[in-house]
C-alpha cells in the first residue's frame, strides 16, 4: 500500500515536471518566432524608410550653367534661383539628350549656358549630383494673337502674364486648329490665323537671329469658340 502511494506521487511529480518543461518550451518557441518576426518587420520598415528618404531627398533640378569649375557647377533655374551642384569625379555621370536618346559624355563637354537637368541628393548647400543631362529647354506657353505680320510670318502673342512674345512661324512649324464643332485638332495654315484667336505654342527657349522665338508647333483656338 505504501509503495503504491509512493509510486503514484512519483508519477505525479514526473508528469508535472514534463508539463512544466513543455509549457516553458512552447513559450520560448512562441517568443523566439515572434521576436524573429518583429526583427523582420523592423528590417522591412527600416528598408522602406531608407527608400522613402532616398526618394524624398533625391530630386531633379534644371537650369542654365552659369559657372563651371572642377568639383562643382552653378546653375540658374527657371525662377532665376542659383543652385550649387557638387560633382563627384567617380560617381557623377554625364549624358546628352537628343531625339529622345541619351549619349554618355564627359565633364569636359559641359559648357556655360548649357541647359542641364541634374538629379541627386539634396543637401543644405545644394545637390550632390548623380546624373547630369544636357537637355533642350522648351517654352510652352499660350496667349491671344494681338498682331499678325503676313510678310515676315510672325505673330505677336499677349500671354496671361501680360507679356508680349513674337513667334516666328517657320516652314517646319506644326500648325493645328481646333474644329469648334467636334473639338478635334486639324491641320491649318498661317493665313487662317486671326487677331483675337488664342494660341497654345511650343518653342525652343532661345531667340533666333530676328530676336523672335521659332515655333515648333501651335494650336489655334478660333475666337468663334468663345462666342458660342
Amino acid at each position: 500500500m505504501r509503495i503504491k502511494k509512493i509510486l503514484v506521487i512519483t508519477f505525479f511529480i514526473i508528469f508535472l515536471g514534463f508539463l512544466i518543461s513543455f509549457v516553458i518550451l512552447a513559450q520560448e518557441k512562441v517568443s523566439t518566432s515572434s521576436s524573429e518576426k518583429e526583427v523582420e518587420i523592423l528590417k522591412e520598415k527600416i528598408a522602406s524608410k531608407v527608400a522613402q528618404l532616398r526618394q524624398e531627398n533625391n530630386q531633379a533640378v534644371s537650369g542654365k550653367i552659369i559657372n563651371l569649375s572642377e568639383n562643382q557647377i552653378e546653375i540658374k533655374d527657371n525662377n532665376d534661383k542659383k543652385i550649387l551642384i557638387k560633382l563627384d569625379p567617380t560617381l557623377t555621370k554625364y549624358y546628352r539628350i537628343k531625339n529622345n536618346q541619351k549619349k554618355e559624355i564627359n565633364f569636359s563637354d559641359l559648357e556655360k549656358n548649357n541647359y542641364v537637368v541634374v538629379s541627386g541628393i539634396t543637401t543644405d548647400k545644394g545637390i550632390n549630383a548623380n546624373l547630369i543631362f544636357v537637355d533642350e529647354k522648351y517654352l510652352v506657353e499660350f496667349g491671344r494673337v494681338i498682331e499678325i505680320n503676313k510678310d515676315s510670318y510672325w505673330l505677336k502673342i499677349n500671354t496671361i502674364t501680360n507679356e508680349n512674345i513674337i513667334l516666328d512661324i517657320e516652314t517646319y512649324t506644326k500648325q493645328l486648329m481646333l474644329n469648334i464643332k467636334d473639338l478635334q485638332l486639324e491641320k491649318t495654315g498661317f493665313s487662317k490665323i486671326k487677331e483675337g484667336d488664342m494660341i497654345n505654342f511650343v518653342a525652343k527657349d532661345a531667340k533666333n537671329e530676328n530676336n523672335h522665338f521659332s515655333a515648333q508647333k501651335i494650336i489655334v483656338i478660333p475666337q468663334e469658340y468663345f462666342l458660342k
Partner: protein
Amino acid sequence: MKKESLIAIILGLFFGFVFAVFIVIILSQNKLEKRKILVSEKNVTILSPAKKIDFTPLTIDKPNNNIIVNKDQISIEGSVDKDSLIIIQSPIKDLVLQNKEKKFKVDFPLALGENVIKIVVYPKRSNIKTQEKTLFIYYLPNEI
C-alpha cells in the same frame, strides 16, 4: 454564530446588492441623456446654412510637380469646372478634351529628360477667366 446574526448578514448583503444595481441604472441613464444633448447640438451645427460655390478652379491631384519618374507615361488627374475645354501640351504631345464631369484623368506620354507640360483650361462660362498650370516632370529611367 447565532442564527439571527446569519440572517442579518444575508439580508445586509441582499439589500446592498439591490442598492448598487439601482445606482448603476441611474448613472447609465444620465450618461445617455448627456449623449443625446451632444448629438442634437452637433446636428444644429451641421444644419447651419452653408454658401454654395459652384465653380471648380483648376487643381492637379496627380502627379506632383518636379517629380522624377521611371516610366515614359504618366496619368494626369485633376478637377476643373464642368464642360471646360482642356488643352494639355508638351513638346511631344498635344491633347484636347472637354470634361463632362468635374474630375478628369488622362494618360500623357513623356520624353526622356525634362518634360514641360502646360495645362490650359478655357471655361465654358465666359465670366470665368482662363486658368493654367505648368508641370515639370523628369523622366530619368536609370535614376530610380
